[in-house]
């Protein structure tokens, strides 16, 4: 039986060091929820608070309506997949998977049946009698997953389960994890600092920084309408350009380098006033036009051909640099030093206040806002 997880005003301290000052979060039943953030931001810490391996210095943790703060980790019915797999080296694959089942006083046949079922699910039944030492990294990871799932936990917790694998296997295994999660529909909390991985597997993502959650939302929302500058620059590539909002004749404009002004209709009504802002323009939100056409003037510094796309490194007339991604063309790559004009896909760009705390554009969805009132 899956549960939903509610965390209210969680506090974590190590000695006098506050790692998580005040964190609230809802994880829905059956969803694949990812904690994403830079190294040291407290992802593991939070995950282990849910698992019961870290003390909780403040706040409340609920599984459905049951407060679990003081519940013994043994009783929380959690499946956990560890970064280093934590496979018992002295037990065969099969016995590793059966380990948790044996603690439940199930009849022998049921243990055998369930072990089979999960060995098959993760596709390692042919290695069942092997010792873990003689398995590859990916196979060990599958054992870890099968072992965690075999106990039919209420919640599946995974702390960077793929970080010990090579790049290709990482992509392969994340698909496996996602598929299996879909199949059994278990509430899953996943930790990673790889944003691409997060986007690939998650239903929703919480972006963390320094113990605070910055934004919670579906991958698309985080990428297209980041709630603040941190999220904008942590997820995906982006060019940050200092700029100004100006209003004339009731129309809002943004100023781009070279005194080039573009009308912008996406700014929220209450923010439509003259003010300094920071623009976040992703490389694919700029497009190259031949010089002379209407657009921002810029010069190409370098070009990198990557197959599908070509990356251009450019600078504007005021010297500010930016990166652009264009679909590769058949004819030729633009030479270094070429002067170009740039068009802007205005509906896509994001505009932040000078502190980077707020996105001024309409359509920002941050599930975190649900709690800010309740705090």
């Amino acid at each position, binding site marked *: 039986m899956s549960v939903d997880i509610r965390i209210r005003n969680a506090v974590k301290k190590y000695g006098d060091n506050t790692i998580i000052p005040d964190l609230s979060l809802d994880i829905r039943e059956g969803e694949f929820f990812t904690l994403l953030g830079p190294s040291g931001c407290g992802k593991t810490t939070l995950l282990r608070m849910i*698992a*019961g*391996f870290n003390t909780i210095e403040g706040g409340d943790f609920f599984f459905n309506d049951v407060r679990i703060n003081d519940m*013994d*980790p*043994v009783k929380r019915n*959690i*499946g*956990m997949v*560890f*970064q*280093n797999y*934590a496979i*018992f*080296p*002295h*037990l065969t694959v099969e016995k590793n998977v059966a*380990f*948790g089942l044996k*603690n*439940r006083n199930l009849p022998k046949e049921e243990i055998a049946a369930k072990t089979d079922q999960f060995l098959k699910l993760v596709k390692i039944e042919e290695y069942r009698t092997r*010792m*873990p*030492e003689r398995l590859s990294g990916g196979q060990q990871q599958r054992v870890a997953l099968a*072992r*965690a799932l075999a*106990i039919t*936990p209420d919640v599946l917790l995974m702390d960077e389960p793929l970080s010990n694998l090579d790049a290709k296997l990482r992509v392969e295994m994340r698909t496996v994890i996602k598929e299996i999660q879909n199949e059994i529909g278990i509430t899953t909390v996943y930790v990673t600092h790889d944003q691409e991985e997060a986007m690939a597997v998650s239903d929703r993502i919480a972006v963390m920084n320094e113990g605070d959650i910055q934004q919670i939302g579906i991958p698309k929302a985080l990428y297209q309408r980041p709630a603040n500058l941190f999220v904008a620059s942590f997820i995906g590539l982006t060019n940050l350009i200092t700029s100004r909002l100006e209003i004339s004749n009731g129309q809002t404009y943004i100023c781009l380098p070279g005194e080039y002004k573009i009308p912008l209709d996406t700014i929220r009504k209450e923010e439509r006033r003259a003010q300094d802002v920071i623009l976040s323009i992703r490389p694919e939100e700029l497009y190259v036009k031949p010089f002379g056409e209407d657009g921002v003037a810029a010069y190409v510094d370098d070009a990198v051909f990557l197959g599908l796309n070509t990356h251009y490194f450019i600078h504007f007339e005021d010297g500010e640099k930016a990166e652009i991604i264009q679909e590769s063309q058949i004819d030729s790559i633009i030479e270094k030093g070429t002067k170009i004009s740039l068009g802007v896909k205005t509906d896509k760009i994001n505009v932040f206040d000078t502190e980077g705390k707020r996105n001024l554009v309409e359509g920002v969805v941050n599930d975190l806002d649900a709690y800010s009132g309740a705090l």
Partner: protein
Amino acid sequence: MRATLSKKGDVWRLVSVLILVLYAVILVYPLARLLKVSVITPDGHFSLDGFRAFFGQRYYVRSISNSLKVSVAATVISLLVGVPLAYFYQMYELKGKSLLQVLIILCSMSAPFIGAYAWIVLMGRSGIFTKLLGGIGIKVGSIYGFKGILLVLTLQLFPLVFLYTCGALKNIDNSLLEASINMGRSGTKMFLTVVIPLCMPTIIAAALLVFMRAFADFGTPLLIGEGYKTFPVIIYDAYFAETGGNRMFGATVSIIGIIITACIFLIQNYFSNRHKFTMNAMHTIERKQAHGLKNVLINVYSWFVVALAFMPQVYVIYSSFQKTSGKLFVPGYSLDSYRFAFTHLKKAIPNTFKIGITALAIMIVLAVLIAYLVVRRSNFANKVIDTLSMVPYIIPGSVIGIALVLAFSKRPLLLTGTVTIMVIALIIRRIPYTIRSSVAVLQQIPLSIEEAALSLGASKMKTFFTITVPMMGNGIISGAILSWVTIITELSTAVILYNANTITLTLAVYTYVSRGSYGVAAAYATILTVTTIISLLLYMRVTGNKEVTL
């Protein structure tokens, strides 16, 4: 230079040959002599009379079963005491845990017979506790015989189990325990079904070590065993009878001893091969604070066993300052025992250092060379060296002593009674441990570093001395200090080889204990203990931590 080298093979081949020759002389030849003397009569006939004499007498045969009983019991109890202690120590915040650990190490390093004699003085027929408790009507059972040997050996050996198990626990990744808890196993159940199996390879190794020590220890049963004769005591008696006459019998008993320990080793090997896996902790187990009754119980348990094990040493130090009259302690305190100790057996202290340091220096050089050959130049000859160097690990010390006497009592190899033979004995006995630790250190050093040096034009020897050895440095030094402690407390071989000129501190303690001069013995023992403590502090300084791993 290069041409000559490639013709003869490299320098390391020469080193292999030299070491092989050395082992042939100091180990293979003495053991071969021993075997020969045991089955060839002085007039040159093959005969199994020695074996017949041994197995024909219940008295002798019983000594084997006695020894096995004592050793098995001591091993089991040491494990039962030591493994939980290590678990508590690594898992929970114990009160004064640093001190606790230092005390445990000190216990493991003292000579067992000192424990035996302290327990006699405390709980023997006219022991202090016996009288005190007798005064209030409590009768303590006899400390002599099986029970006494078991008590002393267990208290001496559980610290070894502790140290080994701690090493294994440090290799367990915390997430393994968390995984177990997640899947519903915690507490005692987790200890029994996860922690113990994970430590099994180490526990089996520790069990062998403890068993061998218990089986080979002869000082303890000699002092406290009384009528309960164990096998090493028989070897010792046979040897001293042998100096009087029947050499064959002494040799026979020694060979029987080797056969028994070899069997034990094979049995252990069988089990350890079935429990083989490696672990490497990314996150070591973090100590937790236990609460309530549990906290009280684990603290009481830990401190109780350690206090019990350490009490003899405290008592020995205390009694070294007691006033004596003749061999008896009288009320009051004085330094007479020390005065006596420093004026008699004047050679004991300098000998201890002379013999110990010489043996240590040669042993380190040899061990490092052998470790290098074993790890980096694996070939048949070096495998032979590896095996040879480990042979003494399973041979009782007194047997080695007897083999050396048999081999080196005639010209041109007349060495008996010299410092040289003592040094050889110590090297043979202790080098297996030093080699193991050097091998472990060397395995941590990537081969590519040496290859880089070679590619930059350094010769093989230069690479070894300027790159490999310095990188092994700390590991070697810390290993050496621990070896040093075992060297200065070695008794069972030395007691067969020593004479008035080559007596050491440990032997001096033994001599005066067996003469009943407990005050003087205590003074020597205290000097020994202080030397041990200083060595241990040095070790902690060098390794920069408080954790001793064997």
